[in-house]
């Protein structure tokens, strides 16, 4: 065997013992009828796919993540574009401002949003002062809207930074070349800028979409009774109900969704570049 192999053996060992083996244990559990001992069965998966409740929850999780991703693109792209191609100074300050929230715990941020969004909270007061809403309460907290707002806040830095990097790499003279060939701003955006930043948009989308699928903290704290998603189901199974076998099955299904969506998105990125 090649001696150089030993150089990578520590990370490989760590990866196998703390990632691959647990994953197989989890998959194994998902096929057991009860706890760590029961017999092999497909019942856990059947339970999931036979109940409309779980399928609806799956769809809700996917559509929420999709919405979060799309909004992140819509906010993130213009921001990244301005940073990469419009302004000359102050980029670093903006980048730092985007990154700082990373250093705060997700839990703390979720509770901060609770304070901001609750009825009678800061957002309501500001909106009322601006005469955007009347005397009725805001009614955002403990709805899906609150969850989406918080998820966008958490994940959009990934989007901005990846798109920023792809735009930064792109030669500005391409945009100028397009204009010199009589293409207006819209055509230039559609035919040059967008296709060339597609890899960035897609990696950003993977970085936003995938973790959005598995969240459970924000739905719990901000989503109220409406909040359940696949992530909260898994958490409940493992920590509240001790239904490890079903929990493992759901986790494995989520992993498959992640796997399929990542594959599809990456295919997209590779096309004709």
């Amino acid at each position: 065997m090649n001696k150089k192999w030993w150089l990578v053996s520590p990370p490989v060992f760590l990866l196998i013992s703390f990632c691959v083996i647990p994953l197989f244990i989890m998959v194994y559990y998902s096929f057991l009828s009860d706890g760590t001992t029961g017999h092999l069965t497909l019942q856990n998966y059947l339970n999931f796919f036979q109940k409309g409740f779980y399928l609806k929850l799956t769809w809700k999780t996917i559509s929420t993540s999709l919405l979060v991703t799309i909004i992140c693109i819509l906010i993130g792209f213009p921001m990244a574009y301005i940073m990469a191609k419009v302004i000359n100074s102050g980029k670093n300050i903006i980048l730092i401002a985007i990154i700082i929230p990373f250093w705060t715990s997700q839990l703390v941020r979720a509770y901060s949003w609770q304070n901001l969004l609750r009825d009678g909270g800061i957002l309501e007061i500001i909106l009322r002062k601006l005469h955007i809403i009347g005397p009725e309460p805001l009614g955002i907290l403990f709805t899906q809207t609150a969850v989406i707002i918080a998820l966008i806040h958490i994940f959009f830095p990934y989007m901005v930074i990846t798109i920023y990097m792809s735009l930064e790499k792109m030669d500005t003279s391409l945009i100028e070349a397009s204009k010199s060939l009589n293409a207006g701003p819209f055509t230039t955006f559609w035919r040059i800028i967008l296709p060339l930043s597609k890899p960035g948009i897609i990696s950003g989308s993977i970085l936003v979409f995938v973790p959005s699928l598995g969240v459970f903290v924000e739905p719990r704290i901000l989503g109220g009774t409406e909040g359940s998603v696949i992530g909260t189901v898994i958490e409940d199974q493992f920590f509240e109900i001790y239904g490890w076998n079903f929990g493992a099955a759901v986790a494995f299904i989520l992993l498959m969704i992640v796997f399929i969506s990542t594959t599809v998105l990456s295919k997209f990125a590779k096309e004709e570049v």
Partner: protein
Amino acid sequence: MAYLAIKNLSKSFQNNLVLDHINFEIEKGTFLSLLGPSGCGKTTTLRLIAGFEHQDEGTIHIGGNTIDTLPPYKRNIGLVFQSYALFPHMTVGQNIAYGLEQRNFTKGDIKKEVSKALEMVQLTGFENRKPRQLSGGQQQRVALARALVIKPSLLLLDESLSALDKKLRVDMQIELRQIQKEVGITTLFVTHDQEEAMTLSDQIAVMKNGKIVQMDTPQNIYKNPVNSFVASFIGQSNFLKGRIKENSQFVLQNGSTFSLPQQDYSLYNQEEYIISVRPEKIRVDQTRPSYPHIQGKVKFVTYIGNLSMYLIEALGHDIRIQQQNDSYRDQLKVNDEIYFSWNASDQSILTE
């Protein structure tokens, strides 16, 4: 008014005056090179004309109309960038078709125009390649075809050949000039390479610190530079600084004196002048001649095949002389005592 007229064009970046009231005019079909050291404002001039920056002062006219208020995509100016700026996600054919599509050409016309353009730059059959599958010279040609296919009113090239290696660059210079003449397009070419500017241009505008120092044909600039900057930027020259006295005597700053070639010097007053003489215009004698001359000693010899460069020590200066290596002329050797002189018509008397 001339076809392209630049009037009083000025531009500052953060209080730093980069273009200082530039003026020039060229006729239709002219190939003009903007030549100058890095940072003198050449690119800025092109970017103002293309519309990517806006001038603080002055106007730009093409064909009698001002284009000052038009956005870049309405100026109808062809551009070739130093980096070529080919769209990497499009094929060669799509790159060239891009400008035609913006002008609502029919599919059939686009196809015809694209293949004509490819033929012009000798790249027939390359339609379906991606830019990254082409060599530097081929990319350069695609960029040129893409800029010309829209039949622009003006072609701008910014150091477009600098990225190519020497041999390819010379080939591309010739090809560019041929195509330019064929199409008859008015062209503005930016370069810091004087040889390139000499090879290509009908006219050269020498720039320094945001100003045009001299604009003329390559021959005239070479023969009659307006100052020592131009004389040393375009080709090489010897500079002797001093005062002209009566009897055509020239007194150098270090006190040594020699006789200038026969000419009327009454126009020149008592101020300091710089005499500029090109190395190849100096005549060498190995016996003392009867006409005005300077005595010197060969310090260093560089053999360049058909030419030799000599460094001569004379009058406390280093004088460069260049000579053809003809069969009837002896090569000079180090420490040879020589006598050199030049014709009055080959010297420039400069004030700065």
